[in-house]
Each structure stands twice: as C-alpha cells, then as structure tokens.
C-alpha cells in the first residue's frame, strides 16, 4: 500500500513526465523594430524552471507545451509574454525601452571591437551610386577604412585588405573583389546581418590577422513574399524573399545584379582615340535558404557567384585584360540538444579564379586559381547565466594554382596546397552581475612544405554598468596566406600564395569604453596595440618568373597602434554619427629599404567620418556623409639612369627610372561629401523609393592611383612627371527601387 507521500511523488512524477513527453520544441527569432536580431534575450517558461537565451542571430529554441506562457525579457527591451499555441509566431518583435518624454530608444551597448551591422543600419548611409553594401558601411566605422575609389577592400586596425576573413555561417567565402570602393561587394538584402570582430576574437576564429566578418541571412520576413527591382547608376538588380512550405517556415532569398556601365563606356569610347574609359562589367547572384527540418534540426544554405571583366587600354602598345570570377557555397545545420545546448555542423567552400593578360613590349599572362574547403563543428552550451562554454573543431584545405608566362606558350605552372586543422574551446564566466570573463584557446596544425603547431589564447574582460561598458581583451592569431600584387596597385587579380615558413602572427591588446548620456548620446573610445611577427613581403616582384628565387617571401616584423573615438546622437528626427581613428603602422624587413622601418601603403594616419540622417517627414529622408583621410604612401622613382640595351644595337639607349626605397612618397589627404535625398511613396501594398544623391559634392580631386609619365623631347632629353589619376569627381546619381509584397 502506497503512502500519501509516495502517491504524491508518483502523481508529480507522472505530471512531470507528461509535461516533458508532450512538450514540443518552440523556436523562433527575436528581433527589434529595426529587424536586427536581439542577442541574450532571456526566454522563460512562466511557472517552470525551463528557459533559454537567444543567440547572436536572435534565434532561440526551448521545450514548451500548449498554453504555457513564455516571457521574453531583456534589459533594453520591454518584456513580451506569449502563450504557446498552434499558431506560435516564428518572429518575436521586441520594443525598445523608451523614455516617455523624449521617445528615444535605449540601445544595448556594443563593445566597439565587435560591430553588428543590420541592413537597416546600412540604409542610413547615402546610397552611393545606388549601391548598398556591408563592407561600404563597415568602412565608415572607427578602425575600419577603405583606401580609394579603386579599392573594394577594407583595412582594419592597420591590417592589409587581405588580412580579413569573410565568413557566412562561420565558413570562409570568396571576396568577389568588384572593382572600386563604390560598388557593392556583399549584398545586405540577402546577407542582412553581419558581425565584424576587430579584436577580442572568439576562440573559434583563426587564420587572419586583422578581422573576422561573419555574415548571415536572417531566416524571417514579415510577409509571405516580398521583392524589389532596383535601377542604379551602375547596375540594376532584382531581389526577392519568399516564405515557403506548409507552415511558411522556410525562407528563401535571392538577389541578381547586372551592370550596364560597360555599354555607356562603349558608346563614349567610340569617339575617343585615347584615354578610353574602362568598359568594366560584372554580374553576381546571391541566394540563401533557411528551413527547419524538424523540431530539433534546422538547415541553412548560402550560395554566391560573381563574374567581372575589366579591359584596360593604357596606350597604343599597352593593354591589360583582367577577368575574375568566384563561386561560394555554404551549408549549415544545427541541432538543439536541450534548452541550452546545441550542435552546429557547417561545411562549404569557394573558388576564386583570376586572369591578367597584358599586351605590352613583351606579352604577359598570369592566372590564379584558389579553392578553399572548410568544415566546422561547434558545440555550445549557453544558458546566459553564470557559466557558458563552447568547443569544436574546424578543418580547412586550400589549393592554389597559378601560371605566369606568355599565354599559350611556355611558362611556369605552380601548384601549392595547405591543410589547416584547428580545435578550439571557449568559456564565458560571469564573475559578478556586471563583470564577465571570456577565456578561449585555439590550437592549430598548419601543414604546407613544413608543419607548424600554434596555440592562440584569447582573453576578454567586460564590465557592464547601467550607462557604461568597459572592456579589455587580448588575442593572438595566425595567418597562412599572403597576396602577391600583380600590378602596382592592389587589384582583383592579385594572387594568393600560401605561407611556406613560420606563419605571420599578431598579438593584439585592446581596450575601450562606451558611455551613454541621457539616453541620447553614446560615446565610445578604444585603444589598440598589435605586435606583428613573421609577417611576409616580397623582396621584389618579377612577373616573368613568379616561381623564381627572387619571389622568395621575406619575413619581418611590425606593429600597429591606434585610437578610436566615436560619438552618436539620436533625437528624432535627427541622428548623427561621427568618429575619428588615429593609426600608426610600421613594418620592418631586412631585405626592404635597407632594413629601415616603413609605413605600408594602407596606413591611413588620420581618418574622420561624420554622418547625419534627418527624417524630414514620413516620405523624405536626407542623409549626408563627410570623410577625411590622410594620404597614403606610394613608391616613386628618385632618379633617371641611362642604360645600354644589350639586345638592340640600333637603339641601345634606354632611360630607366631608378627606384630606391619603397613607399617613399606620401600622397595628399583626401576628403569628400556625399548626400542623398530619399523619397518613399506607399502605393497600396507596394513602395516606390527614389534616391537622388551627389557623390563628392564639392568635386574634391582625390587621387585614386599614381603613375609616372615620361615626357620625351628627344633621344637625350626626357622628363618624368609624377602624376595622380582622379577617377571619381562630382557625380550626381539617381536610383529607383520598387518594393513589392
């Protein structure tokens, strides 16, 4: 005979079992009004111990049964209570805590070394020539710079454009390297949420010295179907998002873009003998698909294909044809292993192929092909309380092939590959309510012509008060590839070369503070110092013999340090953002510039950026951005020598510019103002948007690249003029976008 207490335990146990057996998995995404995912939202089943926390893409998953109530709470947002039912929404919108008097959002603090970018934020910048881009927005942030109108790369805290890793779902994807900094590289319509790490890197990341940019499509849209057709100055695009499946839980996004700049160039060039405009053309296709497989598994797929052609006619005898294309593909699947645990498996790869064909005194052809395949597994336990941890392994195989010589003739074919295996673990420990400690360790095994073992620690301490946040971090990273410039300026056909000896290392110490004042002002400041060791450069670049001894990579050292200051002010209808970056980068190689230290050509000493957004009324929005950058260094010859041509007896005299030190000339600073006026009209369900703007309003002559112009008078008289080309002056533009649902 069972006692009363025994019966009670059996009933309670039965009820507990019933609850858990019948509990289904409830999952979704938590976003704010700007449709940015909200991380670290506490989701709690009212009246139970069950709960979960949203991850950095706003996703959450937990067990709950019908009619249970879920509470969504976050310090910066108003709490939301939802009852679990058959029609439980897949997207939970949180409303920011507001100051009743001033209607100003209280935004959660973000350490300045981790930047989170949503497509809504990108919308607040002037839409330069009709092109929105993740990287263009990133280049307006403290510590992240772009170099010139010709360069699509970003330069983070003194790193080169090739020192950044671009990920989708933590898997390396190709950088399409569309020419010029005004063209979009990654489309925020599909890749609508990005995180940029400038320092304090999570343990799972390694392989790049400067930054890690993880982009991801958001797996939700408010409507079943939406799309837009856009006509810009340089290209047109068609974009669409669609909810699919019985429960409309599968979301697909597609973006296709095609340029027509080349047609305008062709028309203009027909009437020109020289100074022909490059008939540059490109097209790209980006897609993503997010779908739940069952209660526990979900699946995400991403793909991107790009194709670019750039013919450059320099003169009657000289012509270069540059072609490059890329394909990237990523598959990620995640399994919920309970309320606070999950396992993520992702795999993917990319191909980047480039060709440079030059017709000059001696014809020259180079081609490069790089395949990279990656595989990641990650196990995470994130309760959002005292102790979280994650660990995993990643494997990368990269294959390089490049050829140099004369096309269809003899030349050097070079084949390289490397294997990289990383394992990592990270713990996040809450020392107190305000103080958090993140500890990580990334161990690597790099195998090329030699084998290198690496051990890279990561430490981050964050103090978070009511109106301020202070952080200090240290991170060591390694890099296993180096770019080889084919031309004088960094170009899309630069070749990637694997490191054949000790890999370049960066030890970065960084700290900063964020302060808010009266919930309208946000101030941030950061300091960073990087010690660079075993960094690589080439003693010389000989395009006739890319595999020769002269192409040997030199090993050197360097440092980068700087300060970043930012201020934001938001009081409807005005939002202002300004920042300043001071940077000082030095490299030193025994075989370059007689061993003297020098600034690399991407060292921008002072950089100022300011942006204002004014919502004039419901239909009109005005944005303006002004930027100032110190001049970068370039290499100029210092003199002229007369040499004998051993191989041409009749015309044996050659005048040759004599180069001594690299990077011996600093260009003048550049600055410009861009403005855009956006007009939006609601047409029943659809929206028509028109962006009218002006690039470089006051027509500042900003140098894009430099060259030497030999002005020959006779056999014994020649003058070499250093000149700079200005590619993008005052330029009005109009972009029309029709959004439909």
């Amino acid at each position, binding site marked *: 005979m069972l006692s009363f207490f025994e019966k009670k335990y059996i009933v309670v146990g039965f009820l507990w079992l019933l609850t858990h057996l019948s509990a289904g998995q409830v999952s979704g995404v938590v976003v704010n009004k700007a449709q940015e995912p909200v991380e670290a939202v506490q989701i709690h089943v009212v009246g139970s111990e069950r709960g979960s926390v949203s991850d950095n893409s706003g996703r959450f998953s937990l067990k709950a049964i019908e009619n249970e109530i879920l509470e969504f709470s976050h310090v910066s947002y108003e709490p939301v209570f939802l009852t679990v039912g058959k029609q439980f929404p897949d997207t939970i919108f949180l409303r920011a805590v507001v100051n009743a008097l001033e209607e100003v959002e209280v935004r959660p603090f973000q350490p300045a070394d981790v930047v989170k970018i949503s497509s809504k934020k990108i919308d607040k910048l002037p839409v330069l020539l009709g092109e929105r881009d993740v990287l263009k927005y990133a280049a307006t942030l403290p510590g992240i710079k772009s170099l010139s109108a010709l360069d699509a790369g970003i330069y983070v805290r003194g790193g080169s454009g090739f020192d950044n890793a671009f990920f989708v779902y933590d898997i390396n994807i190709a950088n399409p390297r569309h020419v010029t900094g005004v063209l979009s590289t990654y489309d925020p319509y599909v890749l609508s949420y990005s995180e940029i790490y400038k320092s304090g890197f999570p343990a799972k990341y390694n392989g790049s010295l400067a930054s890690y940019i993880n982009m991801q499509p958001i797996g939700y849209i408010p409507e079943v179907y939406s799309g837009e057709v856009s*006509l810009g*100055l340089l290209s047109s695009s068609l974009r669409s998002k669609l909810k699919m499946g019985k429960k409309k839980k599968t979301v697909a996004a597609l973006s296709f873009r095609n340029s027509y700049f080349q047609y*305008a*160039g062709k*028309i203009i060039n027909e009437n020109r003998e020289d100074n022909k405009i490059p008939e540059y053309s490109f097209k790209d296709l980006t897609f993503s698909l997010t779908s739940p497989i069952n209660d526990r598994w979900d699946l995400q797929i991403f793909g991107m294909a790009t194709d670019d052609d750039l013919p450059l006619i320099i*003169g009657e005898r*000289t012509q270069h044809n540059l072609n490059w294309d890329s394909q990237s593909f990523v598959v990620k699947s995640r399994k919920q292993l309970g309320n606070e645990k999950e396992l993520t498996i992702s795999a993917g790869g990319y191909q980047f192929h480039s060709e440079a064909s030059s017709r000059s*005194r*001696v014809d020259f052809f180079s081609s490069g092909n790089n395949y990279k395949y990656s595989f990641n597994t990650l196990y995470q336990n994130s309760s959002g309380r005292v102790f979280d941890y994650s660990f995993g392994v990643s494997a990368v195989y990269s294959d390089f092939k490049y050829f140099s010589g004369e096309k269809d*003739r*003899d030349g050097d074919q070079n084949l390289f590959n490397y294997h990289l295996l990383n394992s990592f673990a990270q713990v996040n420990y809450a020392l107190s309510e305000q103080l958090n400690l993140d500890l990580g360790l990334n161990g690597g095994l790099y195998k090329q012509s030699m084998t290198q073992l690496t051990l890279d620690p990561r430490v981050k301490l964050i103090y978070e008060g009511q109106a301020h946040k202070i952080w200090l971090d240290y991170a060591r990273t390694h890099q296993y590839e180096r770019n080889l*410039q*084919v*031309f*004088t*300026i960094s170009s899309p056909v630069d070749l990637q070369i694997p490191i054949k000896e000790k890999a370049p290392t960066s030890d970065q110490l960084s700290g900063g503070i964020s302060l808010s004042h009266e919930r309208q002002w946000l101030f941030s400041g950061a300091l960073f110092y990087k010690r660079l060791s075993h960094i690589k450069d080439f003693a010389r*670049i*000989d395009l*006739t013999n890319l595999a020769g001894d*002269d192409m040997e990579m030199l090993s050197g050292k360097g440092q980068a340090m700087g300060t970043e200051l930012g201020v934001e002010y938001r009081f409807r209808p005005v939002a202002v953002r300004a920042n300043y970056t001071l940077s000082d980068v030095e490299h030193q190689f025994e075989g370059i510039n007689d061993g003297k230290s020098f600034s690399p050509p991407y060292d921008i000493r002072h950089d100022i950026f300011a942006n204002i957004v004014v919502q004039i009324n419901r239909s009109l929005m005005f944005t303006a951005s002004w930027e100032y950058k110190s001049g970068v260094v370039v290499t100029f*010859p*210092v*003199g*002229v*020598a*007369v*040499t004998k041509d*051993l*191989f041409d*007896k*009749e015309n*044996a*005299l050659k*005048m*040759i*510019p*004599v*180069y*001594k030190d690299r990077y011996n*000339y*600093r260009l003048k600073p550049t600055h410009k103002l861009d403005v855009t006026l956006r007009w939006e009209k609601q047409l029943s369900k659809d929206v028509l948007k028109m962006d009218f703007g002006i690039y470089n309003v006051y027509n500042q*002559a900003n*140098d894009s*690249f430099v*060259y*030497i112009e030999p002005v020959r008078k006779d056999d014994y*008289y020649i*003058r070499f*003029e*250093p*000149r*700079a*080309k*200005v*590619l993008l*002056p*005052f330029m*009005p*533009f*109009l972009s029309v976008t029709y959004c439909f649902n």
Partner: protein
Amino acid sequence: MKIKTLLIFRLLFILTIGLQGCDQSEELSFKDLDTSPGYFVECYLTPGEVYKLSATRISPLSDDYILDYSADFDVTIDSLTLFHSLYSENGSNYIYNFGNAEEFAPAKTTDTVRLQVINAENDTLRSFTTVPDSIQLINATIDDDILQISLTLSERPIHNYYLLKIEFFKQNEETSSDLKFYDLSKTGTDQSELEIGYNLPMETMVKSLKLELFRVTEANYKYQLSLWNAENANDDNLVFPNPLDGNIENGIGIFTCYSKKEFSMEL
C-alpha cells in the same frame, strides 16, 4: 513609362557628367622626395674588345633630364686606367664616357676582374666580376615548332645563366624579336650538357631565325631582368616597379663580362 523616363535621365547623367571624371589627372609635387639618387655605372667587358664604361650621376627625378657626361671620375679596372672622353659604337646611339684602347683579355691565372671608381666627393664605388667561359654549342634543332638548343654547361653554376634573343624574319620582310631568360644554375653538377627549349610562335610566315645566345653572370642575369621590369614600369604605370639589381658597391649599375654565340636557322 515612369521608370523608362528615369532610366533615360540616368543614362544622360552618365554620358554628360559622371564619366567626365575618368580623364582627370594632376601633376604631383616633388616635395619630400629623395634628391640624391647616387651614381650609376655600367660596364660590359667582352674578350677581344676595348675597355669602355659609362659612369654618371643619376639625375634626380625632379630635374629635367639632360644627358650629362661632364662629371669626372677616377676609373680603374684592375690596374688599367680608363680615360674620360666620349666613345660610341658603330650603328648605336649609346655613348660611353670612359675608355681605354687596350683590348680586354681575361687573365689565365685569375678570372676575377675588379673595378674602382672614385667620384668628385672622394666616395669610392667598387665592383668585381668573374669571366664566363665561351659558349660551347652542341646542336640546335627545330622540331614541331619547338626550338631545342643543346649546349655544354659551365662547370661553375654562377655562369649557367643564359639569355636568348631570337629575331624572326618573316616572308613579308617583317621582323620581330623575343628575349628569354634561362636560369640553369641549379642543374646538377653531374650534368655537363643540357637542352633549352623555346616554343616558336604558331605563325607560318616565319622563314628564318637569327639567334644570339648570351652566357652571363648571375649578377648580370638579375640586372637584365630588373631592367626589363623597370622598362615595363616606365611604359605602363600598372606594371610593378623594382629597384635595379646590380653589383656596384655604393652605387647602382653593373660591372660584368659575358660571352655570346650568334647563329641563324632556316625554317
């Protein structure tokens, strides 16, 4: 209709205003540029030919360049003094400003030749070179558009650098030429003979070839390569500039010796 109109507006912008900027360029100031580029010396010694050398001060880029051979130097090669005057070769516009009528005859006892140049500021420029052996051709054939040249390698790897100049004579009397660089210095020491190959252009118009094969020192090989690069950079601002290689201590240039073999082939 509305969108069409806007499209026309946009194209007008491109054609009228936007692309005008592609032509803009500006001359840059020479401010902060090094104005003391140094001295340049170039000397190719050939057995059986007279000593001749050019030595000049490198003109700063900021100056209008006028070839100036007036600067005097004390020039000696081994113990032989070279005199300051102007010398030219037949059919060439190249001028040497130092020479001696004595013919260069490589010493049998030592194959190192030394150069010393003292300028007006009493700075000394020095260099030395070895003397490559004469070229021993074994055979030259053309088979399936591939030119194969067999030669005897030098016993000294530093002399196994070759430059091949090929002149193509076409049926329509046009000529063109090509220059190839061959680094055979890493060939095994047990190998005394080697073939170098050249893929002939797929043109049926070529009726004969004139070939000049140079055996050069390692320093000269690198110097010629750097000259080729620099010349390209001169012509095309996108080609990467490189400092000139050479073997002149305290200066820029080359002091070297080479041997040459000339021959022709009918196709």
